[in-house]
């Protein structure tokens, strides 16, 4: 699904956020990226969804290098990748439902389908009563879940999740992980960046640790 070959990212003037990362993530895999704050987790996800471009190396998704994608093809790729951003990127003057609907509207889903999917997701994430609340008025933990709901709503083939449980209690964390597992079972490739060890401690999936922009170790996964 995803191939990274000696990928580096440098922010001007001289911040090296990622250095020589080579990595391959299979279709339908759930993959954890861990590391201290500032290790480069968010940067890695931004490169994967082509929000940022790498300063070195090559990124391929489904066998195609994504660096040259422009216009329509880039848009189509992004429709297939759902991203839950660490800083949420919610439209704080719109309701929860409208925020979640956006990712489906851009691929012209029918209004009835969108409505149903939104209710469904809000139920699963314990936000059913926030359907018509302006997202600016939600708590951070709630906003975090709305972001996640938006990321998975359009049933993308790849889901990138940045710190999905940072502001959540144990029970809500479990809800979130259940939703992600469900998406994974349905075939989506999932990449989770986190420092919450409760969600990857007992996992059978691969866990990659970044240290100051370099790949330190990859552990776990079935042989």
């Amino acid at each position: 699904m995803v191939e990274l070959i000696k990928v580096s990212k440098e922010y001007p003037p001289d911040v090296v956020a990622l250095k020589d990362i080579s990595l391959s993530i299979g279709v339908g895999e759930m993959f954890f990226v861990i590391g201290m704050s500032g290790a480069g987790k968010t940067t890695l996800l931004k490169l994967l969804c082509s929000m940022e471009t790498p300063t070195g190396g090559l990124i391929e998704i489904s066998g195609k290098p994504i660096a040259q994608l422009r216009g329509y093809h880039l848009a189509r790729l992004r429709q297939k990748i759902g991203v839950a951003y660490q800083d949420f990127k919610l439209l704080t003057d719109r309701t929860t439902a409208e925020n979640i609907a956006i990712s489906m509207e851009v691929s012209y889903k029918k209004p009835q389908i969108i409505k149903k999917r939104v209710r469904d997701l809000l139920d699963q994430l314990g936000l059913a009563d926030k359907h018509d609340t302006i997202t600016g008025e939600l708590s951070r933990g709630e906003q975090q879940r709305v972001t996640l709901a938006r990321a998975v709503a359009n049933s993308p083939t790849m889901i990138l999740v940045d710190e999905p449980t940072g502001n959540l209690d144990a029970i809500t964390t479990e809800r979130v992980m259940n939703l992600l597992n469900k998406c994974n079972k349905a075939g989506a490739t999932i990449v989770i960046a986190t420092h919450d060890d409760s969600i990857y401690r007992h996992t059978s999936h691969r866990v990659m640790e970044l240290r100051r922009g370099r790949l330190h170790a990859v552990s776990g996964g079935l042989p």
Partner: protein
Amino acid sequence: MSFWFTVLRQVGRNLRQTWGSQLMTLLTVSLSVLIFAFFSLIYTNMINFGEKLGDDLSLIVYLEEEPGPELQQQLINKITTFDEVEKVRFISRTEAYERFARQLGENRDVLDDMPKDFLPPSIEVVPLKNLRSLNQVKLFSAYLSRLPGTLKVQYGQDWVERFYHFTRLLSIIVLLSGTLLILTTIFMVAYTIRLTILGRQAELELLKLVGATNNYIRTPFLLEGLLQGIVGSSLGIVSLYALFQWIKLRFSGPGFLNVFEFSFFPPAVSLSIVCVSILLCTLGSYSTMQKFLRI
């Protein structure tokens, strides 16, 4: 289907969010359409008027001697080398005398003492009935006065010249107001759309991130420009029509305006003014998007 649903909802949002400047643009567009259409209307009516006046226009070339048939043919040839003419007619001394006598009517006895050939012979030249020849009348008369054996050339010098200058001035005003129309529509529409875009930067950024295509993002703005064009220009034309009717009602009856028939644009012209404005507005929104909305 869901494409248009989403697009229309987006347009609705844009209009609601920046309705103040939208209204300003709308007014500007309709005002410039109104100004332009107003002057073009006067201009076209003036031209019609000129054509009608041109119907009565003729140049009288007074000759020293009555030309024989051969010389007549020569003169006709010379006249037609300058320009096509509607009609050339020779008036002999006696014809001129009789005509004058007829014009005098009851008082014709004053002519009793005069010899029958005291009036000079002349040629009546009726130029083609279009404004081009009306404008050229001056040149034409200069040409005619250089023909051999001419005494002088006479026509309604005064009003022809004044009318000519007036239509020239009008055509300049029409050109200027047309330029104004083009500039205001393109720039005002571009400006409001830029305002909308800047006011929704966050949303547009997000839309790009979740995979909105250029079409998805741009169509609402294009539609907005289109809408400005349709509503703005129709408003302009309709208000001109209302103004026109009002003036007609106000000044009907005996008076200056009755000298000529004042008429509104034919529907095709109104329609093309509207269409051009729509085109311009859409162009305005398109140019802004090229600058500010790119994936």
